[in-house]
């Protein structure tokens, strides 16, 4: 046994493990030092955690789209970040119109429903279009090809929306009912954050139920198992795939409204970072796995929000919050290196040749 171990360890492993170890030491040392310095109060930590969870909820809904599409087509839908952007960007105009009509605060539930519908609808339409135009004709092409069209579609959508709606920032009006905060067990929670967390959990449960329980969801799962067999069983594969994209689009559109509650500005570039992070979350949880996406998103949200202060402050790094994106990407890189199957994914390393 010893012999095979020695033979199997390559220079790659040594480099990877060294880098991993160095980062782990940095994180542990930084955290210990930060906590020892006592620069932040418990309250701050809790605040940061809640922010992280709210963000995680948004990521979870976006990650659902990545995970569903990956599950069914074994490909990363690169354009999903633009699917996420299109809905809320459009909904911001609907919100503005509602404000002008004076309906925004007088009928908040109705307004919210309208905005959510617009956002989910637009995102779903964009998702279906992307699938139809950029992916479906290339389903049997070499792997690199749909990946390239995905990147192309992503840029096309980004700059199309920039052309249509303008390159400026589009403010999203605040709703009276989401102003202020609640004190729950002595902890201050902003209403927007609470709404984002609750909304994300509820929506995630509903969408998960759709995937697990409905006929459509069953069709999806059978197509992801084996397209040919599913087709033989009388399942319309093309339609099922389109539905999967649509469902991912709906989730992304809903996520977009929650995102606007937290950061009330829409613009054409708003999809890039959340999209990339939601992808990270999906990989972190185990891509192709819906509960995994939720778990991964929450963990990522927490790490991103608490991480800079916890890991980096103690190391004497100034303006550590600037590093929050870098932390997310580092997590992505290391997850893919050390455990590409993610937290909840199965190990499928050898089923290859």
């Amino acid at each position: 046994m010893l012999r095979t171990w020695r033979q199997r360890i390559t220079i790659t492993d040594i480099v990877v493990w060294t880098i991993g170890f160095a980062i782990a030491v940095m994180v542990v040392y930084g955290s210990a030092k930060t906590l020892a310095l006592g620069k932040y109060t418990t309250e701050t930590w809790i605040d940061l955690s809640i922010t992280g969870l709210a963000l995680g909820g948004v990521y979870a809904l976006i990650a659902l789209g990545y995970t569903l599409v990956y599950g069914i087509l074994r490909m990363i839908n690169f354009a999903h970040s633009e699917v996420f952007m299109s809905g809320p960007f459009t909904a911001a105009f609907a919100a503005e119109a509602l404000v002008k009509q004076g309906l925004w605060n007088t009928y908040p539930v109705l307004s919210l429903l309208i905005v959510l519908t617009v956002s989910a609808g637009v995102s779903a339409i964009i998702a279906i279009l992307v699938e139809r135009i950029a992916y479906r004709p290339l389903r049997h092409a070499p792997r690199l090809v749909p990946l390239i069209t995905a990147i192309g579609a992503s840029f096309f959508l980004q700059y199309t929306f920039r052309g249509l709606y303008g390159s400026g920032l589009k403010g999203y009006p605040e709703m009276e009912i989401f102003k202020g905060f609640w004190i729950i067990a002595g902890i201050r929670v902003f209403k927007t954050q609470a709404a984002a967390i609750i909304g994300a959990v509820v929506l995630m449960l509903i969408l998960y139920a759709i995937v697990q329980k409905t006929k459509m969801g069953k069709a999806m799962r059978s197509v992801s198992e084996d397209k040919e067999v599913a087709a033989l069983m009388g399942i319309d594969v093309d339609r099922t795939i389109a539905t999967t994209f649509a469902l991912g689009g709906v989730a992304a559109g809903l996520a977009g409204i929650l995102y606007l509650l937290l950061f009330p500005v829409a613009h054409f570039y708003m999809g890039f970072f959340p999209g990339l992070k939601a992808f990270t979350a999906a990989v972190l949880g185990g891509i192709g796995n819906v509960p995994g996406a939720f778990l991964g998103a929450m963990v990522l949200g927490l790490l991103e929000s608490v991480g800079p202060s916890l890991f980096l402050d103690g190391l004497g790094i100034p303006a550590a919050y600037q590093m929050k994106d870098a932390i997310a990407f580092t997590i992505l890189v290391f997850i893919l290196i050390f455990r590409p199957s993610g937290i909840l994914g199965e190990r499928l390393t050898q089923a290859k040749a």
Partner: protein
Amino acid sequence: MQSQNTSLWKPAIQSGLIAGGVAVLLSLVGMVATFNQRFIISGVFSMGQVIFLAPMLLMSYFFLRKTMALSSQKIVLYGLLIGVMGGLVLVLLVLLGTNFNLQAMFINSSSKLYDILTFNQPLAPGLMILLALSAVMGVLASGSFLIPPRISAAVIQGITWVLLVGLLRDLIITVTSRWGPLAGPVKSLFAVSGLKPLGAIFLFALISGLYYWRNGKPVSPAQKPTQTKDRSLLFWAKWAGLIILLLLLPPILGIFFSDILDTVFMYILMGIGLNIVVGFAGLLDLGYVAFFAIGAYTMGVLTSPELNADPMTYWQALPFAMIACVVAGLILGLPVLKMRGDYLAIVTLGFGEIVRLLALSDWLRPWFGGSQGIQLIAQPVIGNMVLNTQQELYYLFLLGVGIVAFIAWRLRDSRMGRTWMAIREDEDVAIAMGINHVAYKLMAFATGALFSGIAGTIFAAKLQSVYPHSMNFLVSINVLCLIIIGGMGSIPGVFVGSLVLMGSPELLREFAEYRYLVYGALLVVMMLTRPEGLWPDARRKLELHEEELEAEAHVLAEAETSAMKSAK
């Protein structure tokens, strides 16, 4: 291909609606209005009009080409139908836009747009003109199937050239202004923007006439089999001519266009590098800008007196920058190269962002200058001459491109190139052939990183400064687009791709606003219709053109039979 002609009405209407939808989209994203200032034929025909009418023409053309076996009557009818449907969609847009205020949402839905779409006429007659012209476009496309191919080819050539020349007016006038006696006549063809109507007619007649004449000339059999000696002479003469032309370009083009040329060549330099990674080895690297940044920043850190008490010269720092890039390529490559293609793409993208974020951070400001970047970077000195103008730096880029293209070409036709290709084709089998795939992927990655880094150092020297903002994801996307559109794995393709993609936004300033929209659309359309690119590698061209292959196989079979006969 459909035999039932009646069943074609529906797809034809669909095509028309799609064409109209595309035209509406192009109008609403603002391309029509932006390009309306740019005339192809002065006072008559603007680029804006081309943009909203071309969808009908092209859609009709491709629709009819797909359904060849139709009577001429039907061809005209379908063309007309597609044009009219497209026109109707546009009419609908104008009616909507003029009656409702869409501008609150679609910022380009301005009265200016509708004036353009109705040709500055009152609404009713304007709409009639719009509809009529759309219909004409559809019919024009069908016309190309009805008249003899020799004529239609000549007409298409003529129109294409008029469009190109009209668009590139500024470049052509600048270049020809130094040609002495020719300058006057050339200039007289052009107006302030675009061609003069008479000039356009002259040009059209000239080009299509020439094309018609040349196409009609029978190929004389004596010309075909040239002596091998002659051929190699011709080959060298071609190369010599090309090199002389490349060397003479800056004085011909002047400062403004030399600057554009610098950009084009910088991207060629990077493109050749990424082509090794993506085109040869099949590794999709979306964080290519990271190595460009590392090259530029190493140059900056080592040569700027701001950060360095004892700054180096450009040439002293160059080897260090190159080493830094290769090392960075190896360090990134080692862990990620075991990953599958799409994961690799995302991880490299993440790496590119990490590099940018680090350069931008306050944490590393003492070393990299944070968001202020690094200034006063050294410029290369040769003898007593400082290379500091666009024209002088062009030669540096040219030298870099020359060396790098030579290396890439040599690598392609060697054991290295074959090994990379094998990995691209089937990684498992390549491993089973005894190839250490990690080592070879690493070599591709490091070579690509090196080339990108060299481009970065020249970039830093050209601007004498580097900023984290110029190191964004879009640079990687630019490079990726140009190699895909030029042709993956093809070295001449990189030149073509860079010239088209990097040159056009600089030459047509209006285009810069829409470049990524167009690039995105190009990537999708290219992958759907012509995955081998504009100028594919000879090998790939072979794959995709079966007729030639069959001919080749035929020749082979003949050779074999004759060999067998002689053996008997």
